């Protein structure tokens, strides 16, 4: 099992460019999440999905869009990249939400630099 796979692993963008980060999980999980991790800030939730075709905003959704067209995939889009979006992005999945006492499984991250 690959678990949670994120592509690409590294990317450098210029301000104003757009791009899509892909997350794929092979565990048949219903829930998927996108986080960003910045130095000294821990992980902050950007968007999440509780099932195929659903998405919801997290703590820091501005400047990002997401889609969950297939259960196994969760895409994160940057519409017009800004230097403030330089970060490490992590995708996670789980069988259920935290209120159901379910842990999350993480990918190894995408390191994104916006120049």
């Amino acid at each position: 099992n690959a678990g949670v796979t994120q592509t690409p692993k590294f990317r450098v963008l210029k301000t104003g460019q757009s791009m899509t980060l892909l997350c794929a999980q092979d565990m048949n999980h219903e829930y998927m999440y996108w986080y960003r991790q910045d130095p000294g800030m821990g992980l902050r939730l950007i968007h999440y999905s509780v099932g195929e075709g659903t998405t919801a905003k997290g703590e820091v959704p501005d400047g990002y869009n997401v889609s969950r067209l297939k259960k196994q995939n969760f895409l994160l889009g940057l519409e017009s990249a800004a230097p403030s979006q330089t970060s490490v992005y992590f995708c996670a999945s789980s069988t259920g939400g935290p209120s159901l006492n379910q842990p999350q499984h993480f990918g190894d991250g995408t390191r994104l630099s916006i120049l």
Partner: protein
Amino acid sequence: SQQGEEDPQALSIQEGENATMNCSYKTSINNLQWYRQNSGRGLVHLILIRSNEREKHSGRLRVTLDTSKKSSSLLITASRAADTASYFCAQGLIQGAQKLVFGQGTRLTINP
């Protein structure tokens, strides 16, 4: 902010010693989860303790939860060099979105 706080921010000990990390939180929780992150890697789930539990063990890990003080601790016994990593607590909230709220983490270094 619902973000919890972890203490200490950094901890350096000798191999074989025990390491204790603390987590405090602000809101009502359904569970408290601990994760490990090795440098350059994603987070790995270590242990989940439910709000009605006070202590939980997994191998060399021991987690306690005190809901009256809104605090949790992670103890790693007989530390090894491979335990060098960052450790995060995460609150599984009762109400609101199906999300975890992560603390800022404790950077643990085990010196050989």
